[in-house]
């Protein structure tokens, strides 16, 4: 048995002759692939496409809100803009963002497997995603939807003449792509771990993906049946949500949020996994309280299913159930706080370096904390009744989803980019992009907290003139943010050809994915790895003298 933590010299690194990228050429070798790494790349390209579509709608919303009167577009066009922004960003970007790209790429390698448990289902999941995406585009080209991303009944079933059915079915189909991803991850973590890879040796990235997968598998089918009922109600007029026939629109809210609150954690948990990896690697320390962080992911997944009614405090649910759901909502903040504190303790006395992924991770920690804490404000009923349906809500979930999740996604993309492509991103430019993103983000969304507190409602195309200064700031920030997102796309594309060769382990990290060549072979490992060490064992690595760690160049 030989030790193979590889700490190769990066300056002499060369691209490997064989890798998953040159194992077969042509469109067909990609479109019919079973390789999780190629499917991850397919996903990466498609979600980037939809990200920029969603970003375009966000831009239109911000542009309309530059001036107080409703002048740039008709009010119902504005409704379509924010609806399409929400649908595209939530279902076609945030839900698959980290799991389907980074998770797909590194999760099987992290557990020491050659592939996910069901490669064909993995490919099917991508095709379902594309089908859902095409249907969304169809709804968009045919004239758009204006229900809000929440498909609220009876608005969506009775009062609109837009393409609710197409959009609803698009989300239904995209939902199954998410179910299959989650199913694949769960089975892979249970059945495909390499010898010696016990549950408590798994990287925290795997734990958080496992927890998110449980939510995908249990939550998404409920959204699916809810959308089926909405479509049936619109199409043939069955009466499950129709008050005229005895149905109750509140039931729709219960079913929708039964998925859509856990969906928040489907979106954020994989991002938290990225942050654990990045913080540990760049502070050269094992994640503080590994077990606590691992179980906090599971706790989040469990709590996530018992807080949905906090979206319904003003919808006439009973005071008692509001009280219980308010309490449970505050409880779900505990596992999130456990993570934040443990990451902070990981940094404490660590040998911190400030590579780009780490900058994004710092951004995540700050912005997610603000987003999370404002969530606790909103979870308390008195505050919620004042602030709900205002820009405070908009700012809150953008702090979590954009400030948190998008930062984590970019952090992860930079962190694993060398592994995916074999090349480094340009460090200086990417640091600039991280900074621009952070500044742009705060400029965009911080004013919205104040706007919401002052009472500016969401989802209106016009607003009183006294709110203009803050809205101009927000729109200016969105422009900066747009630059911050365009930059990585440009320089990462550039780096595909001109980036420095990364070598297998540019970060000198201990994870299994860093012990194989970059980009990896189609089969990931030449031999099945035998794991007999804990995750993130940087203390041990630091104490090794050079000859004890075999250097594989």
């Amino acid at each position, binding site marked *: 048995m030989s030790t193979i933590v590889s700490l190769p010299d990066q300056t002499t690194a060369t691209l490997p002759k064989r890798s998953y990228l040159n194992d077969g050429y042509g469109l067909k070798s990609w479109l019919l692939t079973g390789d999780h790494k190629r499917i991850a790349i397919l996903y990466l390209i498609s979600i980037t496409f939809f990200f920029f579509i969603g970003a375009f709608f966000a831009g239109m919303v911000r542009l309309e809100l530059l001036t107080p009167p409703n002048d740039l577009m008709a009010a119902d066009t504005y409704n379509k803009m924010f609806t399409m922004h929400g649908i595209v960003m939530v279902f076609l970007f945030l839900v698959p963002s980290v799991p389907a790209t980074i998770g797909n790429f590194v999760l099987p390698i992290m557990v020491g497997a050659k592939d996910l448990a069901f490669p064909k289902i993995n490919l099917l999941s991508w095709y379902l995603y594309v089908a859902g995406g095409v249907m969304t585009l169809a709804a968009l080209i045919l004239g758009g939807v204006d229900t809000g991303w929440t498909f609220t009944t009876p608005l969506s079933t009775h009062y609109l003449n837009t393409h609710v059915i197409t959009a609803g079915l698009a989300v239904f189909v995209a939902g199954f792509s998410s179910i299959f991803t989650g199913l694949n991850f769960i089975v892979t973590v249970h059945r495909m771990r390499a010898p010696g890879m016990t549950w408590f040796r798994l990287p925290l990235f795997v734990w958080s993906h496992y927890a998110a997968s449980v939510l995908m598998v249990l939550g998404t089918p409920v959204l699916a049946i809810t959308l089926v009922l909405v479509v049936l109600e619109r199409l*043939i007029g069955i009466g499950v949500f129709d008050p005229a026939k005895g149905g109750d629109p509140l039931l729709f809210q219960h079913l929708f949020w039964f998925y859509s609150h856990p969906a928040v954690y489907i979106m954020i948990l994989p991002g938290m996994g990225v942050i654990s990896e990045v913080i540990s690697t760049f502070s050269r320390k094992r994640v503080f309280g590994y077990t606590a962080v691992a179980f906090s992911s599971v706790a989040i997944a469990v709590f996530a299913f018992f807080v949905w009614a906090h979206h319904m405090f003003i919808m006439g649910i009973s005071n008692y159930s509001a009280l219980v759901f308010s309490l449970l909502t505050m409880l779900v903040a505990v596992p999130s706080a456990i993570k934040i504190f443990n990451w902070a303790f990981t940094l404490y006395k660590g040998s911190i370096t400030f590579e780009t992924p780490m900058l994004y991770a710092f951004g995540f920690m700050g912005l997610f904390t603000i987003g999370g804490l404002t969530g606790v404000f909103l979870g308390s009923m008195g505050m919620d009744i004042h602030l709900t349906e205002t820009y405070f809500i908009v700012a809150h979930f953008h702090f979590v989803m954009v400030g948190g999740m998008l930062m984590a996604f970019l952090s992860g993309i930079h962190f694993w980019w060398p592994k995916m492509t074999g090349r480094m991103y340009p460090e200086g430019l990417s640091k600039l992009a991280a900074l621009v993103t952070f500044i742009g983000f705060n400029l965009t969304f911080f004013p919205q907290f104040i706007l919401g507190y002052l009472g500016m409602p969401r989802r209106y195309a016009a607003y009183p003139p006294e709110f203009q200064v803050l809205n101009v700031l927000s729109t200016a920030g969105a422009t900066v943010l747009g630059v911050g997102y365009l930059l990585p796309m440009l320089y990462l594309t550039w780096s595909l050809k001109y980036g420095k060769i990364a070598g297998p382990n540019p970060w000198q990290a201990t994870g299994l994915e860093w012990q194989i060549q970059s980009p990896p072979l189609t089969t990931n490992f030449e031999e099945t790895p035998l794991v*007999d060490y804990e995750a993130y064992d940087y203390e041990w690595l630091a104490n090794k003298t050079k000859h004890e760690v075999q250097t594989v160049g």
Partner: protein
Amino acid sequence: MDSQAIATHPEQEQAEHEHSPYLRHHFANLEQQKETSTFGMWLFLLTEIMFFGGLFTAYLIYRNWYYPAFVAGSHQLSIGLGAFNTAVLICSSFTMAMGVHAAEMRWRKPLVGWLLATLFLGCVFLGVKAIEYHEKWEKHHVPGLNFSAEGFTKLDPHYPEDKPLPLDMAEKTQVYFSLYFAMTGMHALHMVIGVSLLIILVVRAWGGAYTQGHMTTVENFGLYWHFVDIVWIFLFPLLYLISRHQ
């Protein structure tokens, strides 16, 4: 040798398992492959439970709210056809189980026979369901498309003890029939998918694909079929048998 290092087994016991043509490249051995796909199937059935769970939740709430309407609606279903279909599905579960057994024993022709029997029973179920739907259409019990609450405001000669419903409660039978169609419709859709898969299975079984020791597909399909049956076992009493003792 350092016990904490990441290490590989140089002599990975490759020879331990003969390379079966059915072994996919990313599994270590057939046992792992089989366990994995069975586990995946159970997990998929869990998502199905959540899918139907949304409908059962709706049923539970509305049945509590509009109990008289649910009773009246339920009395309009044909208990004979429902019971017959229940029997058909239970039989089909038996034939499916026998099919799995035949595949285990590597009996090719009996496997095809049992699968064909299952296919036949599945089609019988769908045929009876179609008759029932047709009957609902003729009685104007299809919410949205063809509905009239009139029948529920008058005394039903078949259930003389059922009092006629007041007009507002009679309207609520639409919720009952909405759920009836949504639940049995989703179930029927699962049956249609099952029957389509069975056709593929029969063809491949005839070619001998499942009788050479690799029968995970048949087993997993069996799990799916039994699951769809079980859903019906719940649907039958919930929809057909509300307050039938009167």
